[in-house]
């Protein structure tokens, strides 16, 4: 069959229907990752599901706008990020957040160090192995998620905006209404608490004794 023959059989509407089916299949495939990303930011399962649903509908409606310059999933994640920022603003405005001001000190962090500033013996970091292998280890991410849930809400929000959403600290302080220096303090606390939690959860799991 020549190209011209095929052209007679496949008209425009079946083409776009096939495209729509293909997009829908890909959206279904990426959905679980969208939900876990949203959950890490919003810390509320229902709100995370709703935001992802809204993202999927927008992606279907706007699939014509997908230029193909970036990957399709990257494009969908871009839509989700915008919607998450809107949802976070709504959370904050409706009073679902504790005030963002910093405690003078963080006792969990203080317990990691001796009075002279050296690591306490029990808190000294151990090796986690090769980063690539760690990234591919599903058990690591389960511990990571559990540790994120355990973080105080505000530390977790600032951490996700910085390290998952990729916003600069300047943008974060504009979004959540804190000074940039506060943001640095919060990120320091979040990183220390996370690494401590991950190490105690993950290394125990991989090296049971």
């Amino acid at each position, binding site marked *: 069959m020549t190209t011209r023959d095929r052209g007679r059989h496949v008209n425009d509407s079946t*083409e776009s229907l096939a*495209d729509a089916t*293909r*997009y829908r*299949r*890909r959206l279904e495939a*990426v959905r679980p*990752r969208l939900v*876990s*990303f949203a959950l890490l930011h919003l810390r509320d399962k229902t709100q995370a599901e709703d935001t992802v649903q809204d993202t999927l509908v927008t992606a279907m409606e706007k*699939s014509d706008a*997908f*230029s*193909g310059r970036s*990957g*399709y*999933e*990257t494009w969908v*994640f871009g839509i989700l990020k915008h919607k998450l920022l809107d949802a976070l603003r709504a959370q904050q405005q409706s009073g679902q957040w504790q005030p963002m001001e910093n405690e003078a000190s963080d006792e969990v962090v203080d317990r*990691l*160090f001796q009075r*002279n*500033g*050296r*690591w306490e013996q029990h808190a*000294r*970091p*151990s*090796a*986690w192995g090769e*980063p690539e292998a*760690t*990234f591919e280890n599903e058990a690591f*991410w389960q511990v*990571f998620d559990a540790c994120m849930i355990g973080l105080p809400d505000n530390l977790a929000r600032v951490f996700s905006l*910085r*390290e*998952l*959403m*990729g916003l*600069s*600290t300047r943008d974060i302080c504009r979004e959540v209404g804190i000074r940039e220096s506060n*943001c*640095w303090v919060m*990120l*320091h606390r979040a*990183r*220390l608490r*996370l*690494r401590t939690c*991950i*190490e105690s959860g993950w290394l125990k799991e991989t090296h049971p004794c």
Partner: protein
Amino acid sequence: MLMCKDATRLMSMKRDRPLTLRERFSLRFHLTMCSACRECDRQFELLHHAGRRFEPPTEDRTTDDAPRH
């Protein structure tokens, strides 16, 4: 002299803003001497890239059902 607690503060900060020359030197000096802080620095780096987990494994271009434009 920089102690571990302040070293972790600089390790965290360097992922959010450029350190001053003085901060960079004192951190580097501390890291040459302290293996625990070197591990901590590696772990902060890993956390800094935690978002990579959400990147598509092969991106969309390799599959045969790539979207048509």
